[in-house]
């Protein structure tokens, strides 16, 4: 059985606790980075991460991009969507096709 984690600033992720997901509020980027790598080693198949936190951790997230487990999925935090998640979709198209054709 796998688990689902939610990673981000306290106010953005607290609500997910009601759904029964494992919530890990982090205060700063460094803590987020360590938490992300630790969760990836544990039994977490999906790690939701706020875009605000992900903004400085591109390299760390890219490490799990080609792995089947875990899936690191960006979600907008409390501050609104930064468009990083959407641009990642575009990036994967560019990676596959060589140009953004959508």
């Amino acid at each position, binding site marked *: *059985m*796998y*688990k*689902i984690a939610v990673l981000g600033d306290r*106010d*953005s992720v*607290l*609500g*997910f*606790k*009601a*759904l*029964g*997901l494992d919530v890990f509020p982090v205060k700063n980027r460094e803590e987020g980075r360590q938490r992300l790598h630790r969760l990836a080693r544990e039994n977490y*198949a*999906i790690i*939701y991460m706020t875009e605000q936190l992900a903004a400085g951790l591109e390299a760390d997230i890219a490490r799990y*991009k*080609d792995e*089947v*487990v875990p*899936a690191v*999925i960006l*979600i*907008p*935090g*409390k501050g*609104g*969507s930064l468009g990083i*998640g*959407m641009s990642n*979709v575009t990036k*994967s*198209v560019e*990676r*596959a*096709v*060589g140009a953004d054709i*959508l």
Partner: protein
Amino acid sequence: MPATTVNPTRMELTRLKGRLRTAIRGHKLLKDKRDELMKQFMDVVRENRTVRAKVEQSLMRAHASFTVASALMSTKMLEQSLLYPKQSVELDMSFQNIMSVEVPVYRFQTKNQDPGDVYPYGFAATSGSLDDAVDALSEVFQDMLKLAQIEKASQLLAEEIEKTRRRVNALEYVMIPTMEENIKYITMKLDENERASTIRLMKVKDMLLKEAIEAKREQEASAIKAFEEKSGAPDEG
């Protein structure tokens, strides 16, 4: 000239021709694989975009309700309300094979089956906005799971397409032309050798003929001389 040194032998030529055949066949197969992957990938990515847009929108609504709730309630109360969830989620993962790319498929099970009973707190001390937020989150959760599945699939497919594309290009623009050039080089070299040996034979034959003619001439000359000597002696005598 080929970039690497190849032995211009018949054996090498046969080997190279076999390799070229395999390379061309592999190239065709990989190209088909790339095209099919691309087709699948475009579908997945399109869905990814729509699901992501939907999730982001719904999440923003949930966040808005949550912000209102956290403004109406004290931080301590809010945390206390959410501290012990009623609900728990277990995730089951299986794999789906898209063109030999293993893509995860998630299935989740909630411990609490009743969707109306997700609030882990009493209603007396909490704001209605918190209910809205939790409601919105539990609604969007289905889509979030779908998003995770699709996004992972699109990432894995993108990686596979990139790999396949590189292989196709390497075969098409490097391997196959090099091999063709090597084969051409060997054929030319072998033809050249053959011509050389023909010429050599002709030369040798020429030389032999010349020698034979010379020998014949010498023989004839000496015969004439002998004849002259024989017939000339009585004239003088």
